[in-house]
C-alpha cells in the first residue's frame, strides 16, 4: 500500500503549482473572467505545450495514460487557484465521450486537436426537466437519408460559447427517459439553427444555454452506432465528476488554509480570533471534512484506474461526489462565517472559493442526487 504520488505525478503537480504561482494570481483570474472569451487562450496554448491536455487520455488515444489519479492530482491544484479554463469541458468530458464512443476515424481526427490545444468542445447533454438524469433526453434526432435533423434545448453547457464543436446528446428513438435510443452528434457550433446564450457561472466558468431548431447535420457526424451513446455519456460524466470533485478538494484546502491564517491575524476583543476555542473546534472540523473529502476522491480515482467492475467504478464516483458535497457545505459556509463580513465581499478570494465549491456541489449532480444514485446502484 502506498498513497504517495509517483515521481510523474509529483512533477505534474509541481508544474501546475509553478504555473499558478507565476501566472494565475487572483487579479489575473479576475481579468481573464472579464475578458470576452472568459478564459485565456495563452494559458490554453501553454497547457498544450506542457502536455497537460494529454493527461485525461489513454495511451491508445495518444494521451499521457488517462489515469484518474493523475487527473485528480492536477485538478486539485487547478481548484486551489480556481482555474476557469475549460479543461473539464473540453478535455475530460467531451474528450472522454469521443474516446469512449467515437469511431477510430473520429478519434484520429479530433483527439490530437484537443491535445494540441487547437480545438474547443462542449458536451450538451442536460435539458430543462432532465435534472441530473443523463437518460432524460427530449431533444430529437430525426434521420432523413444522409442527414439528421436536431430539435431541442440544452442547458448548462459548459464552454458552450467557446466550443467550435458541440457534442449534442439527442434521442433517435424511445421514450424520454429510456436508456436506449440516445445518440451523440458532433454539431458545428456555427450551424444554421443553433442559437447560443452565453454567460459566466457563479464559479467564473463560461457556460451556455443552447437552442437547436431544425439543425441539419450529416449522419456521419454521429459518434458510434445509432442510439447507443448513454454508456459513453455516463462514463464521460463520471470522469468529469471525479475531476470536479478533486478540484473542490483543492478549493476546500485553500478555504481552510485561508481561514486558519485569517483567524491568526484578525483581532477582536484584544486577541486573535483564532484563540477562541469555539472557533478552533470549528476549524478542526473543517480540517476533518477536507481530509475525508480527499480520502474519498482518492478512493474513487483508484477504483476508476483499477480492475473493479463498471458498477463499482460508478458507485465510487457517486460516493465521492456525495461525500464531498457535504464537506463543501460545511467548509464553505464556515470559511465565510469565520471571516465575517469581509468573507462576503467580491474583493476577497475566500468568497470566490466559496462560490466555486458551491458550483462544484451542483455540477454533474448534487449531493442528494449522488447519494440516491449510490443507494440505487
Amino acid at each position, binding site marked *: 500500500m502506498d498513497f504517495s504520488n509517483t515521481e510523474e505525478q509529483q512533477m505534474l503537480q509541481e508544474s501546475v503549482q509553478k504555473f499558478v504561482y507565476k501566472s494565475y494570481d487572483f487579479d489575473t483570474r479576475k481579468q481573464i473572467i472579464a475578458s470576452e472569451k472568459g478564459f485565456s487562450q495563452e494559458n490554453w496554448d501553454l497547457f498544450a505545450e506542457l502536455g497537460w491536455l494529454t493527461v485525461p487520455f489513454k495511451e491508445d488515444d495518444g494521451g499521457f495514460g488517462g489515469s484518474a489519479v493523475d487527473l485528480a492530482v492536477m485538478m486539485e491544484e487547478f481548484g486551489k487557484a480556481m482555474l476557469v479554463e475549460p479543461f473539464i469541458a473540453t478535455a475530460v468530458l467531451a474528450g472522454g465521450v469521443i474516446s469512449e464512443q467515437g469511431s477510430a476515424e473520429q478519434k484520429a481526427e479530433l483527439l490530437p486537436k484537443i491535445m494540441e490545444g487547437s480545438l474547443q468542445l462542449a458536451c450538451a447533454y442536460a435539458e*430543462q426537466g432532465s435534472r441530473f438524469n443523463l437518460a432524460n433526453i427530449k431533444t430529437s434526432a430525426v434521420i432523413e437519408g444522409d442527414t439528421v435533423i436536431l430539435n431541442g434545448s440544452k442547458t448548462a453547457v459548459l464552454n458552450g460559447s467557446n466550443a467550435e464543436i458541440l457534442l449534442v446528446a439527442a434521442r433517435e428513438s424511445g421514450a424520454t*427517459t429510456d436508456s436506449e435510443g440516445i445518440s451523440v452528434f458532433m454539431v458545428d457550433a456555427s450551424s444554421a439553427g443553433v442559437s447560443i446564450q452565453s454567460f459566466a457561472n457563479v464559479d467564473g466558468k463560461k457556460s451556455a444555454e443552447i437552442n437547436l431548431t431544425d439543425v441539419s447535420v450529416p449522419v456521419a457526424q454521429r459518434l458510434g452506432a445509432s442510439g447507443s451513446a448513454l454508456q459513453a455519456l455516463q462514463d464521460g460524466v463520471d470522469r468529469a465528476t471525479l475531476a470536479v470533485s478533486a478540484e473542490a478538494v483543492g478549493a476546500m484546502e485553500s478555504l481552510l488554509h485561508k481561514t486558519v491564517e485569517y483567524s491568526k491575524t484578525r483581532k477582536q476583543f484584544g486577541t486573535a480570533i483564532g484563540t477562541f476555542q469555539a472557533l478552533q473546534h470549528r476549524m478542526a472540523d473543517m480540517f476533518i471534512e477536507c481530509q475525508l473529502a480527499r480520502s474519498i476522491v482518492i478512493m474513487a480515482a483508484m477504483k476508476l484506474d483499477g480492475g473493479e467492475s463498471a458498477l463499482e467504478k460508478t458507485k465510487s464516483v457517486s460516493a465521492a461526489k456525495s461525500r464531498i458535497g457535504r464537506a463543501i457545505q460545511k467548509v464553505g459556509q464556515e470559511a465565510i462565517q469565520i471571516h465575517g463580513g469581509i468573507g462576503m*465581499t467580491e474583493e476577497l478570494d475566500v468568497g470566490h472559493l466559496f462560490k466555486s465549491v458551491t458550483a462544484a456541489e451542483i455540477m454533474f449532480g448534487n449531493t442528494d442526487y449522488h447519494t*440516491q444514485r449510490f443507494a440505487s446502484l
Partner: protein
Amino acid sequence: MNADFTAEELQFEIEVREFLQNDFPAEYREKVDAGIRLSKDELVHWQKILYKKGWAASNWPVEHGGTGWSATQKHIFATEMGLIGAPEPVPFGMKMVAPVLMAYGSDEQKQRFLPDILQSNVWWCQGYSEPNSGSDLASLKTSAVRDGDEYVVNGSKTWNTYGQYADWIFCLVRTDTSVKKQEGISFMLIDMKTPGITLKPIVLLDGHAEVNEVFFDEVRVPANNLIGEENKGWTYAKVLLTHERTNISGVPRGKRRLAALKRLAGNTDDGFGGTMLENSAFKTKLAQVDIELQALEYSELRTLAALSVGKAPGPESSILKIVGTELAQEMDELFVDLAGYNCLPFVPEQFEDGFQGEAVGPGSSAAAALSYFNNRKLSIFGGSNEIQRNIISKAVLGL
C-alpha cells in the same frame, strides 16, 4: 395555557390583511415574488402608503405619530406583512435611530428629525461597524474632536447598508481615548452632504452593492447633532441593538418561503418522471424545515406573551436571531437544491430593477444561488451568531 388571539386581535388581523391585499401595490408584489429588488423610490412610495394609513411606525408611541400597538398587534402586523411579502419599513430611521431619539434626544432634535422619519422624507443609514471593529464594536476608532461649536470627525465606517440612498447617518464615534473603551463613545447624527464624506460601494458575493464603506475626512459636525451626553453613546447604542434584535426571527417570511418551496418543488421535475415534491431526500429536508419553523414560531409566541405582560426583551431574542437566521439559510439551500443547474448562471443584473436584457434560466431560479450567497450575511450581521451564543452562555447559563 393557550395561543389564541382575542376577538379584538382577530378583528385586527382581518383589518391588516385586507389593507395589505388592497394597498400593497400588485406590481411590487410581483417583483418581490420574482426576486427583483424594489428601488429606493418604490420602497419610499410603499412607506408613504403605510404612513397615510397611520401604520408607518408600528413600534412608535402615539405621541410621536406611531401606532401605539401592543406587542401582539405588532406581531400580527409583521406576520401579515411577511406573509404577503411586503417589505418592512427600512429599519435605520424607523426602528434604529428613532427609538434612540425618543429616549435620549432633546426636544429640538425630536421635532427636527422624527416627523421626516415618520413620513419617509429622509433616508437614514447606520454608522456602527468599522473595518477593525466588527463583533468587538466597542473598539471603534472613528474620532470626533470638539472644536468650538463643532466636532471634527475622522475615520471610516463599514457594512453601511444602502448608504448610497441615505440623507443622514447615525454614528458611534470616539470622543475620549483615555477611558475604558465603552466609556469614550458618543452617538452622533451626521448629514451625508457634509463636505469630507465619501462613499465606497462594497460589492458582495451576489454581485450587488448593498453595503458601503463610508470615509470621514475632517468632517465638521454641529455640536447640537450629538445625542444626549458626550461619552454615553454606548449605553444609547445598546438600546438600539435591542430594537434591532426584535422581529428578527423572520417566521412570517419563512412561512412564505416555505410555501414557495413547496409550490416550486411540485413544479420541478426530478428527472425521472416525477416531481421534486416526491423525492424522498428533498421531502425529508422540507419537512425538517417546516418543523423547525413551527418550533421557532412557538418560541417567538412565548417571548411575545412575556413581552405583553410587561417583561423586557431578554436573551430570548438571541435564540430567535440564531435559529431564525440559520433556518433562513437552510431554506436558501433548499432553493439551490431545487434550482439544480439553473442556479449556476451568475447574471445578477437580471434581478435589478429595470433590467432590459435577455433573462437567463426559467423564472427566478438563477436567483437561488445569489440569495444563498447573500444570506450568509444573516448569521454575521446584527450581532453575529457567535456573539449571540456568548450572550446566552453568559446571561442565561451564567458561564
